[in-house]
């Protein structure tokens, strides 16, 4: 994957990429190790919150409400941010966003920029565009630095380098930072990064950041991070350029009381991440932070997603990555198989929609529909529902005579009726009988379904469905 940008337009399809990556046992081990740890931490700190479900519900409602009044809140944000001395730019697509940023960096008189991790800039492949315009971007987040120096690509939206272990990181640093005697403890590696970047932080005059939240009420911007590299990029340069998808807006400062509880616990299993920064425009007294602040509000197909009454909940995402960590498919394939910077369940629904369904059509199938992602999502995005909805859209685009189309239509018809669903379950138990081995496993499935059993075995269907069992217990009252 090295060096090749994750671009849904050119990436191999998910099944092709996954087949290769599933063979990379080191990567799978690294991914499983990292996601196991984050999940355990998340479970512990979520367990501390007796009102977690209430927070999730309010989180969902706030996000839905924001999308319903997105125009109102964006205009309010623009007004308040401008009043605070910021300059607001609007970009309809990736190309325009890149042009605006390049123009601003050039106007700032800089040939270098320091960057804080931003999936939005990855989405529009900003680094490549900056380099093309003669500007050198320095990634300052430790993980992003590992990826930049290694010519690699991010594989997780919160922990982008989780597919690398420390020996691999050490090799990259030894080579790229010219440190032949570098130790291999995590502390050695972090110290090397600190030294490597310190000078850049203190001298580069222009910073580029993403944003976690834009606050309409105050025109403020909130960035959440843990290393302090974000604070360096946001406060030390003379010019700060922030790029945010239009979906990042929240109505009021008070809404952060919900989102700042949901996000860190879901993302890294922390009660609060080490640093949150909130700022409004530029300091009127000129003593703190950049002298010039620009923010680029980017559409890049988000308004298209908004149009779709079922798909639009995707925009409620606050990019915590919890769904990735919980996803059995992601845990096997890692992030690169998704062919996009947004991997895991959120990537499976976001990427095809941002591509207006022209690319990444296999992604809605990159899920077992087990529902684990829905369960952990802090704003209750029903990812399985959106996946099924997108599968239908893929099928529609491919046309009626596609064999998958026929299968999906049948499945859709079955799922829509409880009676038909039960009949299908009974039929399934009969039909599978010749395929089940004596231990109750199915090693292969015939025809189209064969692709699925090539890489895994399937348990036979239970003799009794949950519903049957529940009703027998007299539970269906």
């Amino acid at each position: 994957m090295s060096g090749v940008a994750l671009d849904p337009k050119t990436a191999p399809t998910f099944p092709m990429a996954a087949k290769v990556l599933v063979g990379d046992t080191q990567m799978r081990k690294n991914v499983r190790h990292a996601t196991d740890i984050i999940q355990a931490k998340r479970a512990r700190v979520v367990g501390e919150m007796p009102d977690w479900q209430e927070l999730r519900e309010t989180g969902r409602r706030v996000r839905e409400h924001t999308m319903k009044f997105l125009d109102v809140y964006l205009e309010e944000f623009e007004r308040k941010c401008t009043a605070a001395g910021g300059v607001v730019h609007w970009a309809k697509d990736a190309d325009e966003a890149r042009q605006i940023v390049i123009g601003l960096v050039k106007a700032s008189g800089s040939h270098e920029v320091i960057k804080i991790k931003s999936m939005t800039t990855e989405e529009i492949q900003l680094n490549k565009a900056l380099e093309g315009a003669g500007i050198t971007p320095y990634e300052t987040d430790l993980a992003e630095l590992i990826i930049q120096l290694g010519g690699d690509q991010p594989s997780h939206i919160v922990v982008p380098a989780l597919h690398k272990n420390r020996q691999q990181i050490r090799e990259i640093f030894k080579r790229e930072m010219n440190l032949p005697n570098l130790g291999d403890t995590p502390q050695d590696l972090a110290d090397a990064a600190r030294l490597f970047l310190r000078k850049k932080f203190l001298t580069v005059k222009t910073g580029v950041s993403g944003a976690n939240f834009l606050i309409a009420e105050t025109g403020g911007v909130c960035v959440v991070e843990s290393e302090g590299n974000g604070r360096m990029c946001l406060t030390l340069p003379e010019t700060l350029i922030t790029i945010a998808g239009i979906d990042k807006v929240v109505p009021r400062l008070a809404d952060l009381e919900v989102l700042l509880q949901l996000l860190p616990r879901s993302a890294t299993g922390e009660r609060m991440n080490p640093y949150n920064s909130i700022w409004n425009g530029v300091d009127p007294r000129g003593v703190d932070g950049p002298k010039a602040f620009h923010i680029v509000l980017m559409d890049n197909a988000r308004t298209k997603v908004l149009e779709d009454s079922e798909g639009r909940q995707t925009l409620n995402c606050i990019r915590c990555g919890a769904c990735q960590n919980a996803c059995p498919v992601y845990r096997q394939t890692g992030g690169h198989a998704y062919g996009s910077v947004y991997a895991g369940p959120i990537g499976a629904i976001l990427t095809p929609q941002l591509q207006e369904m022209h690319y990444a059509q296999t992604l809605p199938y990159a899920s077992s529909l087990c529902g684990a992602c829905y369960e952990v999502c802090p704003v209750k995005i029903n990812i399985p529902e959106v996946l099924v909805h997108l599968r239908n859209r893929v099928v529609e685009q491919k046309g009626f005579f596609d064999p998958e189309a026929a299968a999906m239509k049948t499945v859709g018809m079955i799922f829509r009726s409880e009676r038909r669903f039960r009949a299908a379950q009974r039929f399934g138990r009969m039909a599978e009988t010749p395929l089940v081995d004596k231990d109750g496993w199915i090693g292969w499935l015939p025809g189209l379904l064969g692709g699925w059993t090539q890489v895994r075995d399937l348990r036979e269907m239970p003799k009794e469905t949950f519903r049957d069992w529940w009703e027998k217990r007299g539970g269906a009252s």
Partner: protein
Amino acid sequence: MGEAWGCVVNASTASRELMLGRIRTANAAAGAGAGNAAEEWAAIPREYRRTSTLGREAVLELLEDRLRDYDAHVLRVASEGVAAAVLGMLGERGRTRMLAAPGVTAAWLPEGFAFAVDDGLSVESIDRFEGVMTESTLAIAETGTIVLQTVPGQGRRAVSLVPDYHLCLVRASAVVATVPEAMDVLATRPAFATTFISGPSATADIEMTRIKGVHGPRFLDVLLVMDDVARSA
């Protein structure tokens, strides 16, 4: 460059109209019709906890516990004993070249210890100090968070970031239990740049091992100033 600049601004204005138009059309198409934003925002259910049932002392203990859990060092000190405690802390840490945020309560600065005061130093100069002392706006017990703003006593954001060591004074009277309580306070003074700090700078990017101080301060000490003795009794 002036030319190119002009183009950028024009394109942006056209895109603004286009994007807002698309949002309105999209919301209409998805059946998210008109309504009153303020009214509907006020109607969003908020059943989560705003406050905690813990008593005052328990809240302070929770803060200490959570700060320690995040690798910060914390010490309680009576109002009269702050300067002495500061001196002791600096001795323990072996720090001599210290910076103070302008406007730090004078009585809290120990005599015989020379603090430099940030009066618009360059960042390179700030980088030469071994540590910084600041006050704070408030602290949140449940999350082990201290909150700083760009106001007297707390300084600009760079001073609490660039030096390797941060000594922060927190008034016990400004400790709240929950995040919503903190946001209530901050909503009354939203114009100042605000930084939430939970422990020293840290990362878990390498094999999910928590490592201190990648780019920010590696050491955080908190002095909890017991200024509300009556309430904490």
